[in-house]
C-alpha cells in the first residue's frame, strides 16, 4: 500500500527489472497470491475480477489459479454472478436425455434478442409511418446507415443479382453477432459469440444457405458436377473427397474466426488485469494492467464491429460464390484470399 507513491523513473525501472523475471517464472507466486486477493481488492478497476477470484478462492482455496478464474469468465456455466451483490443460479433442464439447461450464454442470447427486438420494433414502426419523401432521424437514421451498408456494400456487392432473398439472414446475423459481441464488453455480461457452439450454429445456417444457393443456381446435376472440380473422371477419386471437405472448411473457418477473436480479446484483457494481482503490485496495475486493458478494451470494441462485419461479409461472399455461374476458379481464389 505504501508503494503507491513511488512513481519516480528510477523506481519504475527497478520495478520493471523485477517484473521481467517474475513474468518468466512466477507461477508459484501466482498460486500463492490468489489466497490473499481480497486484501488488494480496493483497486476499483480490478474489483470485479478480484471478487470473482475471491469466490473461486472460497470454493477451492488450495488450487485456485488465475487461469481458472479467466476460464470461469469465458466459459459457459449455469450461474450469473453479479459481484459484489451475489449470483443467480440458472435452472437445469433435461429433455429426453438431452441437457438443454438455460446457461449463461443462453441468457445472453435472449438478452441480445430482446434488445434487438425492442430496437427494431421501434425502428420498423417508424418506417411503417414514414413516407418515401421523409428523411429518417435519430435512432432510425443510425440503424438505416447499418442496414443500408449491409444491403449495398455486403449483400449487393458480393451476391449480385437476387441478393434480396438473403438480406433477411444477413441483416439478422450481422446485428445478432454485433450485439452479442458488444454485450460481452458490458459489465456482468458474457460473450455468447465467444462460445464455439454458438458460432458453429450460426455458421451452420450460412452453410445451409450456401448449399441451397448453389443447388438453386446450378441444379442437382450442376451441383454434383461442381464436386468433381471439372476434371477428368480418372481424377474424381481424389477430387470428390477434396471438394467435399472444401464444402465444410468455409463454415468451420467462420466458426473458429468469430469464436477465437471474441475469446482471445477477453483472455487478453483478463490476463492483463490479473498480472497486477499475481504480482500484488499497485504499480503494475497503474502502469500496465489498467492502461493496457483499456487499450485492448477499445480494440475489442472495434473487433466487435469488425467480426460481425466479417461474418456477414463472408456469408454473403460464400453465397455469392455458390450461386455464381462459372464460379469454380473464383471460388478457389475467394477461399484462398481469406
Amino acid at each position: 500500500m505504501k508503494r503507491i507513491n513511488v512513481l519516480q523513473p528510477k523506481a519504475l525501472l527497478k520495478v520493471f527489472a523485477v517484473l521481467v523475471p517474475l513474468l518468466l517464472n512466477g507461477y508459484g507466486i501466482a498460486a500463492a497470491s490468489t489466497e490473499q486477493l481480497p486484501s488488494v481488492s480496493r483497486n476499483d478497476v480490478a474489483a470485479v475480477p478480484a471478487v470473482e477470484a475471491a469466490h473461486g478462492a472460497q470454493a477451492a482455496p488450495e488450487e485456485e489459479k488465475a487461469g481458472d478464474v479467466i476460464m470461469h469468465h469465458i466459459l459457459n456455466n449455469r450461474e450469473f454472478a453479479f459481484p459484489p451483490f451475489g449470483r443467480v443460479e440458472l435452472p437445469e433442464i433435461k429433455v429426453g436425455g438431452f441437457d438443454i439447461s438455460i446457461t449463461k450464454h443462453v441468457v445472453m442470447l435472449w438478452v441480445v434478442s430482446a434488445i434487438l427486438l425492442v430496437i427494431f420494433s421501434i425502428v420498423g414502426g417508424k418506417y411503417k409511418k414514414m413516407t418515401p419523401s421523409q428523411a429518417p432521424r435519430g435512432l432510425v437514421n443510425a440503424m438505416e446507415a447499418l442496414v443500408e451498408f449491409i444491403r449495398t456494400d455486403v449483400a449487393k456487392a458480393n451476391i449480385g443479382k437476387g441478393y434480396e432473398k438473403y438480406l433477411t439472414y444477413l441483416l439478422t446475423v450481422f446485428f445478432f453477432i454485433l450485439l452479442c459481441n458488444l454485450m460481452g464488453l458490458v459489465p456482468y455480461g458474457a460473450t455468447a459469440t465467444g462460445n464455439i457452439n454458438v458460432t458453429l450454429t450460426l455458421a451452420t445456417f450460412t452453410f445451409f444457405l450456401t448449399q441451397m444457393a448453389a443447388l438453386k443456381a446450378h441444379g442437382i446435376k450442376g451441383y454434383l458436377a461442381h464436386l468433381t472440380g471439372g476434371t477428368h473422371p480418372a481424377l474424381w477419386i481424389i477430387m470428390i473427397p477434396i471438394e467435399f471437405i472444401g464444402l465444410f472448411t468455409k463454415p468451420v473457418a467462420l466458426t473458429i474466426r468469430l469464436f477465437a477473436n471474441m475469446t482471445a480479446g477477453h483472455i487478453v484483457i483478463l490476463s492483463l488485469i490479473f498480472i497486477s494481482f499475481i504480482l500484488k503490485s499497485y504499480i503494475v496495475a497503474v502502469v500496465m494492467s489498467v492502461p493496457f486493458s483499456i487499450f485492448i478494451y477499445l480494440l475489442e470494441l472495434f473487433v466487435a464491429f469488425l467480426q460481425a462485419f466479417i461474418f456477414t461479409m463472408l456469408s454473403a461472399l460464400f453465397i455469392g460464390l455458390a450461386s455464381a455461374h462459372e464460379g469454380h476458379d473464383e471460388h478457389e481464389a475467394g477461399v484462398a484470399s481469406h
Partner: protein
Amino acid sequence: MLTSGVILLAGSLLSPEPGLIFWTAITFVLVLLILKKIAWGPILTALQDREKGIQSSIDRAHQAKDESEAILRKNRELLSKADADADRIIREGKDYADKLRADITEKAQSEAKKMIAMAKDEIEQEKRRALDVLRNEVADLAVKGAEKIIKTALDADMQKQIVNSMIQDLSTKRN
C-alpha cells in the same frame, strides 16, 4: 506460462454443448422471423421506395432539363427567324418607299411639264385670239378712218382695198 497453457490444456473451450446449440438455433430463427416481420420488411421496402423516388426525381430533373433546353433552342431559332423577318420587312418597306417616291416625283414632274405645255398653248391661243381681235379692231378703225376720209374725198371701196393691202403687209412684216 500464466494462463495460456492452462486454457489450452483445459480443452473446455472446444467442448460441445448440445443444449446451447439447440437454444442458439431456436433463438436465432425466432429472432430472424420476428425481425423479418417487424423490421426488415418495412425498412427494406422504405429504402427501395426511397431509392426509386430519388431515381425518378433524377430522371424527371433530366427530362425537365432536356425539355427546357429544347424550348430554349426553339426560342432562339424563333428569335433569329423573327429578326430576319423584321430585317426583310424593313428592307422591303424601304425599297417600296424609294420606288414610290421616285414614281411620285416622276409623275409630278411630268404633270408639271404637261401643265406648263398646256399653259403655253393657251397663252399662244389667247395671244392669237387677241391679235385677231386687235387686227379686226384695227381694220375697223382704219376702215372707219378711211371712210371718213373717203366720204370726204375718195371712193370708199378703193381706199378700203388699199388699206387692207397695207395692213396685210403690216401683219406679214410683223410676223
